[in-house]
């Protein structure tokens, strides 16, 4: 196959259920969990964890189950166990709000500390957690360059080759067989990558929303998350909500 046949640089579906892709020339594995794995750096990247979103609602009188932080950490721990990363990057909005760290359960806080043990845990700050953590383990930064990629929370306007960001919580809707599916997804045109939200209570924004326009040089592909594998779906097959 010649070059135009692979406009987005996808290599193959990986046996682990992820999708192997080239982003701005760097090899990346888009995991069906919603995490990004950069093998060359042994770096695991997750975006928008929104710890303590549940208790933020409870504070206002809506008693959502207080287990969202625990569940998000459980899923992250599974990824860390599977991949043994050297570096874990939390790509911003890890805490749902300024009071999240004060509300977090002691057991969950200890789980964060355990994840940081023996590796670097890097908190990239986002709009919900602009100051980073005060007492939870880890280092804090605005962005990080890794293997030719630039990792930051919020995608910058215009084309940004090599940028990896979160913030938008992308979701894909796919119709077929008289039904439709809405899933969290990665979005990429092979130049830049937007990660899905990893937090258990994080909502999603349809990739056809205006917020995504102008970010890609050509129609991007969505990599929709499933329970066993991720699915690369072309732009044309994606529906609005």
């Amino acid at each position, binding site marked *: *196959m010649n070059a*135009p*046949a*692979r*406009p*987005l640089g*996808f290599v193959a579906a990986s046996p682990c259920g992820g999708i192997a892709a080239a982003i701005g020339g760097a090899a990346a594995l888009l995991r069906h969990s919603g995490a990004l794995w950069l093998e060359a750096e042994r770096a695991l990247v997750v975006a928008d964890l929104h710890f303590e979103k*549940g*208790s933020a609602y*409870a*504070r206002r*009188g*809506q*008693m*959502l*189950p*207080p*287990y*969202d932080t*625990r*569940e998000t950490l*459980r899923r992250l721990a599974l990824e860390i166990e599977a991949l043994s990363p050297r570096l874990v990057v939390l790509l911003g909005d890890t805490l749902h709000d300024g009071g999240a760290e004060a*509300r977090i*359960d002691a057991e969950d806080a200890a789980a964060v500390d355990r994840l940081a043990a023996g590796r670097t845990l890097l908190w990239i700050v986002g709009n919900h957690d602009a100051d980073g953590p005060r007492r939870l383990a880890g280092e804090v930064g605005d962005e990080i360059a890794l293997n030719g990629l630039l990792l930051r929370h919020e995608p910058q306007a215009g084309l940004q080759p090599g940028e990896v960001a979160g913030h938008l919580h992308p979701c894909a809707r*796919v*119709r*077929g*067989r*008289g*039904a*439709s*599916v*809405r*899933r969290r997804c990665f979005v990429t045109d092979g130049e830049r990558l937007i990660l899905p939200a990893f937090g*258990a*209570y994080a*909502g*999603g924004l349809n990739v056809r929303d205006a917020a995504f326009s102008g970010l890609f040089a050509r129609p991007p*592909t969505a990599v*929709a998350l*499933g*329970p*066993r594998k991720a*699915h*690369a*779906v*072309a732009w*044309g*097959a994606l529906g*609005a*909500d």
Partner: protein
Amino acid sequence: MSEARRHIAPEAAADGLLPPRFSAWFAGRGWAPRTHQLAMVDKAREGRDALLIAPTGGGKTLAGFLPSLIELAERPPRNAAPGLHTLYISPLKALAVDVQRNLTTPIEEMGLPIRVESRTGDSSVAKRQRQRLDPPDILLTTPEQLALFCAWEGSRGYFADLRHIVIDEIHAIHASKRGDLLALALARLQTFAPQMRRVGLSATVNDPDMLRRWLAPQVSVIEPSPPPSRDAERGRGTMRSMVEGARPDSVDADAPSTASRSPSPAAAGKDLEPLLADLVLGQPGAPPVIEVLLSQNKVPWAGHTAQHAMTEVYEVIKQARTALVFVNTRWQAEFAFQELWRINDEGLPIALHHGSLAPEQRRKVEAAMTRGDLRAVVCTSTLDLGIDWGAVDLVIQLAAPKGSSRLVQRIGRANHRLDEPSRAILVPASRFEMLECQAAAEAVAENALDGDPARRGAQDALAQHIMGCACGEPFLADDLYAEIASAAPYADLGRDEFDRVLDFVSTGGYALRAYDRFRRIVKGRDGRWKVRDPQTAQRHRMNVGTIVQGATLNIRMAGRRFAGRKIGEAEEWYFEQLTPGDTFLFGGEVWRFEGVVGIDALVSRSGDTDPKVPSWGGSKFPLSTYLAKRVRRMMGDEAAWDRLPADVHEWLAAQRDHSGLPGTDDLLVETFPRGDRCYMVCYPFEGRLAHTTLAMLLTRRLDRAGIGPIGYLANDYALCIWGLRPMDGLDFDELFQEDMLGDDLEAWLEESFLMKRAFRHCALISGLIERRFPGEQKSGRQVTFSSDLIYDVLHRHQPDHLLLACARADAATGLLDVGRLGELLARIRGRIRVLNLPKVSPFAVPIMMEIGRERAPGTSASEMILEEAEASSLVAEAMS
């Protein structure tokens, strides 16, 4: 019931019970008061709770209000402005408005000083506020508005003077969460107004005692503490509910004396039999005349549209004055409406009425009916209850009615004059429906009704009520528990269960006590619970009610820049299956689907006459147990076949000769090969829900046994499972073991989309998730999305949570019909008759024809959609 047995001794007749003004009014109209109307006046004089069961057209509404009108007419003038005297609750907004109209006539003609007003969600804010400050004598409203009242501060004072509460169409509301909430509100009102008596109005039902119990306060022996504020005259009422309820053996009106009341308050307790409201029976109407339409055309093998008989239906409409054409789903309504207009050569005014049409459009149709401008209305259950239209002389039921009570209710819409029979024609849409219609017609002729069983009150509804009480005024847990246990659906609620729900309302009820500092209701120093702040109370009031809409989209004309006129609304799933450019039927027109923007489905007019997407689905009601039994019996009784059309007769005979007929108590299982697949079809006739559950559980078992089933399908009559390997050598007794309802069911349910749907309902009703916030309204799909995330997290981290238990119970009864499946498995134990056939049998044809038409929701189907999208993406990539 013979009239002679009933009610009023001669000396208590009209002149004794009715004031002269009332007698004169009846006489002036050329009427005599009906016996049951006088009986209701008598019950009121004695201060008894009463349930009136009477057919439509029997002056039931007037009977319910007559005591109030008399009392109000005789009320001495008072200095202080009087409070609310009578509250009327109707399940339908439209009915509340209509009853107001009907009450106005006698009030005006007798010149009574009585103010009647209605109050629904549609009433203006100004009107509703005025009603709170200056209550009318009689207020007509809905259960939701009543729940809202209970959640207002000052509700105790507002209802302190209440004498009567009249609950209409009680049969249509008691067996639901809406009924649970209403029962709780009744208990609340009784506390506010101990003198209040309860009146229920109902259509004919199979088990009046169940409704009598639902209506009556159940004894609570705990004397409540004095209320925090105003102390109403409570002594009498508390005593009344203790001593005056009738026991089940003491039926009513024959002896309106005190002979059979419970001996003493001390003996009254929860261990005793339930208390029942007195029963008053109206004169039964003339028995209905029901025919099953035998079409000149052959009865179709499968389907739900009755298209084959449409010409005959049109002919029948032509001969009637006004006909109501009932169908079971709105898509069937659309289809029938279009088909009738296709052949409407005489241009008869035929209209359409269903729940998706814009309210203005429905009101227009109703107004045209009232004026007598229409010859027919094609309608769904939206017109099952409601306003009397005198002109209706024929009811046509298109496709099987699924239950005899529903059929009776619908037939009752024709001819509201008691002395003339209602006329109805049933139009079966398929061969099995032919059997079902015949069984239904015979059941109605014998007045053999099916009905909803009594239910235990749901805990999510209870949570909503407790929150409402806390918004109204501070309460002591002991008092509220006693009050709640006086509502029949909660009569056996344990104190531990109550405390658990109370904790849920306060903190969410989580094992991880993370929210003890964020309580929604807080216990004060005086031991009373109250809402934590006015904002929380306000949010609760915005979310009152149990009617949870599925995610719906507005259907709007696509404009050049903005969305245009709203045509109606429909479920989101319907649009999910459409792609832009598809055409579909709605409101009797063919539309082109343009796309979805936000919460609007945009459409444009289409020149097509045939819609591309003819999705009208099956029936939404499952076949009732009662009719199922009759259908099974009818098949076994060859003499009964003569009442069926020739082609159906022939079909039954062919089934007998080629395979076998299902018996009354056994289960017929057929296996046969067809193409490269092997099929198993069984015929329990237990309704679609129970069949779907059974098919799903059998599929899991077959999978474990290495048979490798590929798919399954269920309808009201049968279920079918297919795979690549033959199934005829299986141990069927083993396969149908009742233990499938244990772990297999649990395991499947936890991952099923049905659980998520049930959980969403419970989460909304209980207030875990709010539908509305001040200043904004969540659209249904935003709610769907987030409740699924919450379900996943809660299910993993606290699987024994109250709301999960609620959702499980709802799914098991409402969505899976587990109870009925259990009865089926017990019934057929040791009676499974397996026939290994060389080819498809005559009975298997209908379900085989449905294969491939069904949507298959669920996780694996979702993955399949993504797989296919991915595959086509790859092809596109390779070809680009």
